[in-house]
């Protein structure tokens, strides 16, 4: 392994890391703006022009807040919770192909931190560790509201992971690979997976909402019943980590949706006008980010439109509707592959 390889990976990893943080940072701003606009308000507009320095101000505020660790909590676990949430949120970015590859001096530099051949399994593994952050944090707080929030979060995530996994199986059957890069590469032109897997996409989308704990499935932090849910006892930057992890998760899951179902970095038509592969790669990355931003917006749009589900409705939807649907989708896909190939 020569030096340039390590440097290139290091740069790429830093970029992905930075981009995740940056996008998450501005998602908090975008969320407020979108919420405001959808409610006929203006939103933050005091910190800097149009309020674009608002995330910085929020960060400063979070750091300056008093650091409170409840006496009766398990201190180690109390600190571990937000750390896990943040760690797993940032780890998923590694297997997402952010673009094709840049060719510099005859060497190919693929725009992906690591292309493991079981990328999808890795994603699922990391995402399911993510629930521990919430569970541990909620349990360690030693507060009934936190505990209830954590309970809800974990049962919700576990049940929706099933449907999510099943919907992905249909996709894997079709593409015949577990590598995220290959899934993205297969969707050239207009061959986006969403066209072949509309039902699978719908299930995946719903489950992604549940997995990221976003409205209408944000029962884990349901303010109307649980104060703040699993992060009731958290303050200062530990709370910041939890909130921030949610936005990173949103970014990553938007990236995953875009990559799995919406062609990732593939752009229809552009290939005819631009021939330079490097420019093409950059354009592809930009296009991917456009898709990601759309989905982030979609997340917010949904959040400010649909009220929260009741807990039994949530479980009903997960177990009695989505899982059977996902299984049916697998069978349909099987038939489809048998008859059309």
């Amino acid at each position: 392994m020569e030096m340039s390889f390590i440097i290139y990976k290091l740069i790429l990893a830093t970029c992905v890391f930075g981009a995740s943080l940056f996008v998450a940072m501005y998602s908090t701003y975008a969320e407020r703006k979108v919420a405001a606009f959808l409610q006929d308000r203006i939103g933050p507009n005091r910190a800097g022009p149009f309020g674009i320095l608002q995330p910085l101000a929020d960060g400063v505020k979070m750091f300056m807040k008093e650091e409170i660790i409840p006496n009766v909590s398990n201190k180690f676990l109390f600190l571990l919770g937000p750390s896990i949430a943040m760690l797993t949120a940032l780890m998923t970015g590694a297997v997402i192909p952010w673009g094709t590859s840049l060719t510099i001096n005859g060497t190919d530099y693929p725009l992906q931190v690591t292309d493991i051949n079981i990328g999808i399994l890795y994603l699922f593994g990391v995402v399911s560790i993510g629930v521990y952050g919430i569970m541990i944090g909620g349990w360690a707080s030693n507060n009934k509201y936190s505990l209830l929030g954590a309970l809800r979060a974990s049962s919700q995530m576990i049940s929706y992971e099933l449907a999510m996994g099943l919907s992905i199986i249909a996709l894997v059957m079709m593409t015949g690979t577990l590598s995220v890069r290959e899934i993205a590469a297969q969707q050239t032109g207009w061959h986006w997976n969403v066209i072949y897997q509309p039902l699978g996409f719908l299930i995946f989308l719903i489950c992604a909402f549940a997995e990221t704990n976003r409205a209408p499935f944000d029962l884990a932090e349901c303010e109307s019943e649980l104060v703040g849910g699993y992060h009731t006892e958290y303050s200062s930057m530990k709370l910041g980590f939890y909130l921030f992890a949610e936005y990173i998760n949103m970014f990553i899951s938007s990236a995953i949706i875009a990559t799995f179902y919406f062609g990732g970095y593939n752009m229809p038509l552009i290939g005819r006008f631009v021939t330079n592969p490097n420019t093409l790669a950059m354009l592809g990355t930009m296009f991917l980010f456009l898709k990601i931003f759309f989905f982030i917006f979609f997340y917010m749009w949904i959040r400010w439109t649909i009220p929260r589900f009741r807990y039994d409705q949530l479980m009903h939807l997960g177990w009695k509707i989505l899982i059977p649907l996902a299984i049916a989708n697998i069978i349909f896909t099987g038939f489809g592959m048998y008859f059309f190939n």
Partner: protein
Amino acid sequence: MLTLTNRSKVVVKKQMTFWEKLYIPAILGGLRITFSHFFKKKATISYPEVQREFAPVYRGQHVLKRDENGAERCTSCGLCAVACPAEAITMTSAERKPGEENLYREEKYAATYEINMLRCIFCGLCEEACPKEAIFLTDRIVPSADLRKNFVYGKNKLVEPIEKEKRISVARRQTEDVSEFKKQPNVAHNKLFEGKKLK
């Protein structure tokens, strides 16, 4: 069923149809509605830059008026304090000494006059009670402060400045009747007394 009014409705708990159970059409409908609001004109008025017009009847911070000669109108009769439902007004009286005619209009005046702005509900009853047209509510906003004691406004904040051009106009708050009434020369306290002119 006999009803008292015609407005009561019989509530039916109806089962959702299959179409409704799908949720998706309803969700799409909701998304369409919220998205249409995205481009609507916002109702917000960005405060310090744009200031909203107050209604003519707006009742803000009080002012203790002076008369044409610059003498304080208030005679410390206490009627405003009695009228005040929030018990926000307190005062102590003093007797006017010879030579102070240019400062105080009547023989008795308010040595201290305090309104607790945290108690005040800006009802305007003090204004109505005052027989001397001394106290008025204006269209000024009571500014914020970080200590309770700073909300107790004494005479230094309530009495308007003596300079003619710095006087605080309450014309906007005056109804036609009041303006008419002030012009009547036969009403005692509207009269200009000799010897009360500024020296």
